Structures are given as structure tokens and as C-alpha cells.
């Protein structure tokens, strides 16, 4: 019952369907790109990282094991690695620049805080919820409304709002836990 779009995309990908990469990109492109933008700032760097992540994911698709974690979590791990590479590259370049200019010590680049990545992954999972559940959860998280008030505001039965809240919280939590599996 809990079979999701993600699992289908992930299954097609791990079976090596060439066309599956397009589906994977469609599903996870904005997640990877958003993390890269937040980490690197410059959009052109984030675009390069996004390209590297998906090409690298395709080339190493044999190492993806759906039994060991989610495709989203695997892609986020690759994204972190590519971001780290991009930052090291930047550091090398700025060191050279500073040597040329005779400047002071180079600041170590900052890796994206785990919490930022987690928050972007949460936003991505929220975006996957059906519309009415998503609205309920956005109000539950970000407004001061009680579940009773949310029901009133959205014109939904109280029982529906309660079950949306319970199920969506559980789903978000277990999906994020699954995504967080480190390879």
C-alpha cells in the first residue's frame, strides 16, 4: 500500500533503463540543485554539480542497491561528495590567487550544514504529499493553528485533518530516516 512513485522510479533506474535517468532527474533534479545552490551560492557551480551528480549516478548505477536505502538518499550522498569536491577545487583556486597576490591564510570552505540539507529534503518530501495533505502539514508546521482551526480554515472534517497529520508526520519521518541512510 505504501508503494510510491519514488520506488517505481528507483526500480526502473536500478534495472538500468536508459530512459529512467530522465525520470530520476525529473523527480530529484530540483532536490539536488537546491542543495547545491544553498551550499555553493553560485548558480553556475550548482549547475555543474547537478550535472556531475546525475552523470555519476548513471555511471555508477550498478552500485545503487534499492534494498539498502532510497534513491533520494543515495543521490544526496553523491551530491554532498560533489559539493565537497567543488569546494576543494575552489579552495585550490583561491590559494593560488592568494599566493599570486601574496595574501593571508585561506579560509577553509564550509560544507553544507546537515540541517540545511535535511530541511531541503523535508521541503522535497512535503512537495510529494498530495495537495490537501501538504496544505494541512504546512499549516500544522508553520502557522499557530490547532488541528481544529486547520480543519475550520480548510473546510475539512476534523477526522480527516487528524489522520492527515498523523499519517503525514509518520510518512515524512520514515522517509527522511530512510533517505538519511549513509552509504
Amino acid at each position: 500500500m505504501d508503494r510510491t512513485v519514488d520506488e517505481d522510479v528507483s526500480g526502473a533506474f536500478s534495472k538500468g533503463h536508459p530512459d529512467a535517468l530522465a525520470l530520476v532527474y525529473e523527480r530529484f533534479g530540483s532536490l539536488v540543485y537546491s542543495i547545491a545552490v544553498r551550499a555553493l551560492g553560485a548558480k553556475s557551480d550548482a549547475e555543474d554539480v547537478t550535472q556531475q551528480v546525475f552523470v555519476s549516478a548513471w555511471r555508477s548505477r550498478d552500485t545503487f542497491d534499492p534494498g539498502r536505502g532510497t534513491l533520494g538518499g543515495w543521490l544526496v550522498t553523491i551530491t554532498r561528495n560533489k559539493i565537497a569536491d567543488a569546494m576543494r577545487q575552489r579552495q585550490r583556486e583561491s590559494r593560488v590567487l592568494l599566493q599570486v597576490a601574496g595574501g593571508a591564510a585561506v579560509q577553509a570552505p564550509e560544507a553544507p550544514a546537515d540541517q540545511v540539507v535535511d530541511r531541503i529534503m523535508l521541503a522535497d518530501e512535503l512537495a510529494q504529499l498530495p495537495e490537501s495533505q501538504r496544505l494541512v502539514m504546512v499549516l500544522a508546521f508553520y502557522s499557530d493553528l490547532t488541528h481544529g482551526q486547520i480543519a475550520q480554515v480548510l473546510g475539512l472534517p476534523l477526522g480527516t485533518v487528524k489522520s492527515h497529520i498523523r499519517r503525514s508526520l509518520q510518512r515524512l519521518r520514515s522517509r527522511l530516516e530512510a533517505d538519511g541512510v549513509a552509504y
Partner: protein
Amino acid sequence: MSHTDPMILALRALGEPVGTPRDDDHAQTCAHCRQQLARLSELVDLARSGGPVESLEQPPPAVWDRIAAEVAGDLAAAANGAATGNGTAVIPARMAEPARVDAGHGREESAADAAHGRRSRRARGRLATVLAGVAAGLIIGIGGTAGIVQLTRAPATRVVAQIELSPLPAFPQWQGTTGTAVMRATGSQQLMVVTLHAPQRSGFYEVWLLARNGVSMISLGDLNADQTGTFTLPPGVDLRDYSRIDISLQPFNGSTLHSKTSVVRGSLPAVALGAAPSA
């Protein structure tokens, strides 16, 4: 003793004081319930840390083109390597493109037309297989073509703000009426999703943007019979000026002007004011 109702744990994680003292006692002594509550509370803390929902950004279309070109290069190289073999290498005539049509994608024009056509058909067949698998899952999962749309058109809207609408003191007859406006941004436009909970009255409810001077107004449109509506904000409208939302009850008198009967009103929060559509 049975475990605490998961519903109560979920609401408590959100900070709502629900449940009985018995639930308190249980939650403190039962490792299972304590852990459940902690898991959900962590999620809520994560969501609420650092402001509103993170916005997801769509990569520019060129990024996919570059990925597809690079992967196509891999496949071509693999095909060349296997050219003397029995031709089992799988070569898509072109990579399927997500959510957009790309005109200039001809790679190997030297390939015989017949072979090219055969490969194209095969590639389409594979995509159909992939999609069929996806669709099969959707029938069990979230069902039907809506899910396909959700998949192939990645969610591109984000919530910018939620605005509570409440009656004005000057209109005591509307006390108890509530409304909400959820402002969303897509790549190119801003949407306002409005819901109202008002008594059924003769006439219809109309949604307006109201300027600071209290006089200038822009009509966004009428609410449906179920008192909801989704409206596109006029491109370029200055929300720092038109910063209030007003819902009026309009009589069926043919006038396009505001009836001066304001049902509920709300102000856009600061976060919405500078919210230019992300290009």
C-alpha cells in the same frame, strides 16, 4: 496498559496540549511511546527551525541537456566498442527528455535511416515500459494519471505565505466568519488560493487586493459555490502597496464595483511583499 494513541503523539509533537494525565504517565514510563514522540518532535523541530519551508529551485533546462549529452556520449562509446559483436548494446536513439521538448537532438546522422527508425521505436518501447511500471505502482499508490503528472511535472510551486482572513470590527454581522489565503509562487507567476467559511447569502463572494490608501482595489475574481478559488495575481502588481486581501459579498446588481460589504480581510506578511516570482 496499551500504548498512547499515535494521534495524540502526533499532535503533541506539534505542540498541542492534547490527551489525558494517563497519557502523560504512560508516555513517561513507556520507552516505545517516548521514542515515537521523540522521533516526531525531531521532525517538527527540523521543520520549524530557521523559518518557513525551504524553497526548491528548478535547475535551468540546459542542465538536463548537458547530462543527456554526456550520457549519450557514454552510450555511443560503448556501442562503438561493441560494434563488432552481435549488437546487443542498448542504445537509445535519444534520451527521453523530462517535461520539455528538445528540437535539436540529432546525434549520429550517418546512421542508416532504417536502423535509426528501429532504434527510435525501441527507445520509445522502453520508455513505455518504464512508464507502465510507474503507472502500475501509481494505481496502488496514489492512483491514476494525476500521479503521472505529478511525476513528470516536478512540483514547481512553493508556498510563500499563509494569511488569516478575519472579519472587520465594523461588520459585526460577519463575526465567526473565517478565511485563509495561501500565496504560492511558481516559476513565472504568483497564485492566491483562497478559502472562506461564511454563511450562504444571496449574492456572491468576490476577492480583492486592497491598496494602502484604502481606496484603490484590484478584483482577483469570484469564489466558487464551495467558497474557494484560485487566482493568479496580476503580473507586476506592487504587493507593498496592494498589501491587503479583502473578500466582499456582492449583490447581483450588475455593478463591478466593491459592494462596500467587507466580509473578511487580511494583510500580506512581510515575507510575501518582496516575493518576486523566482525566474
